[in-house]
């Protein structure tokens, strides 16, 4: 049985605790990095991280990018949407196609 974790600034994530997700409030990326590694090797299948915190954890997050588990998903925090989550999807497209064809197409719609 796997669990779901939410990491981020305390204000952005405390709501998820009521849903039964495990929340890990962090302000500094250093501690968060350690925790992330521990969780990724433990029994967490999905780890949500707020965009603000993920900023300082890019290298750590990219390490798990090509593994099946855990799925690390960025969410906007309480301070607003930085667009980092969307830009990660773009990155996937660029990696696969070689150029950003999807979002060029969407602008025309």
């Amino acid at each position: 049985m796997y669990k779901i974790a939410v990491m981020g600034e305390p204000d952005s994530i405390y709501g998820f605790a009521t849903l039964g997700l495990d929340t890990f409030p962090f302000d500094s990326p250093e501690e968060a990095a350690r925790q992330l590694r521990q969780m990724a090797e433990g029994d967490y299948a999905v780890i949500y991280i707020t965009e603000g915190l993920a900023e300082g954890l890019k290298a750590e997050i990219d390490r798990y990018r090509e593994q099946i588990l855990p799925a690390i998903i960025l969410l906007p925090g309480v301070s607003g949407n930085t667009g980092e989550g969307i830009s990660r999807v773009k990155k996937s497209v660029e990696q696969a196609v070689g150029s950003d064809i999807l979002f060029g197409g969407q602008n025309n719609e």
Partner: protein
Amino acid sequence: MAAKNITPTRMELTRLKRKLATTRRGHKLLKDKRDELMRQFMDLVRENMELRKKVEAGIKAANKNFVLAKSTMSEESVNVAFMTPKQEVSLSTDTKNIMSVDIPVFQYQTRTNDANDIYSYGLAFTSSDLDDAVKSLADLLPDMLHLAEVEKACQLMAAEIEKTRRRVNALEHVMIPETEASIKYISSKLDENERSTQIRLMKVKDMLLEEAHHYSERNGA
């Protein structure tokens, strides 16, 4: 270019010809795989984009509710309200295979079956904004999990597509031309050998006949 360290023998030629046939077949198969992967990836990535927009909008709305709730309640009472979560979510994962890429499939179970059993506090000391906030997050959870599934699948497929693309390109632009050049080199070398043998035989024949019949002396006479 034609590698210089190949021995121009008939055996090598057959080996290379067989290798070229395999390479061509591999190239075609990989190309088909890449095209199909790409098609599936595009569908997935569109879904990913839509889900992401939906989830981000949902979280923004939920956060707004939380801020509202917090503004009418004291910090302590909010903390107390969330101290002991009632609900617990556990995931079971499975893998699905799309074109040789293993992607995760999540199924989640909640500890209690009642979807409304999410309020970990009594209603007496909290504002109704908090209820709304919690409810809006709870409604978002299935979408969030689906997003996790789809986004992970996109990442894994993107990596696989990149790998496949490189293989296709390596076969197309390196392996196949190289093998073709080697085959050409060997066959021209063999032809050359054959011609020189032929000439040598003709020459020897001439010499033998000369010795037997002394043509040149007769012609000279």
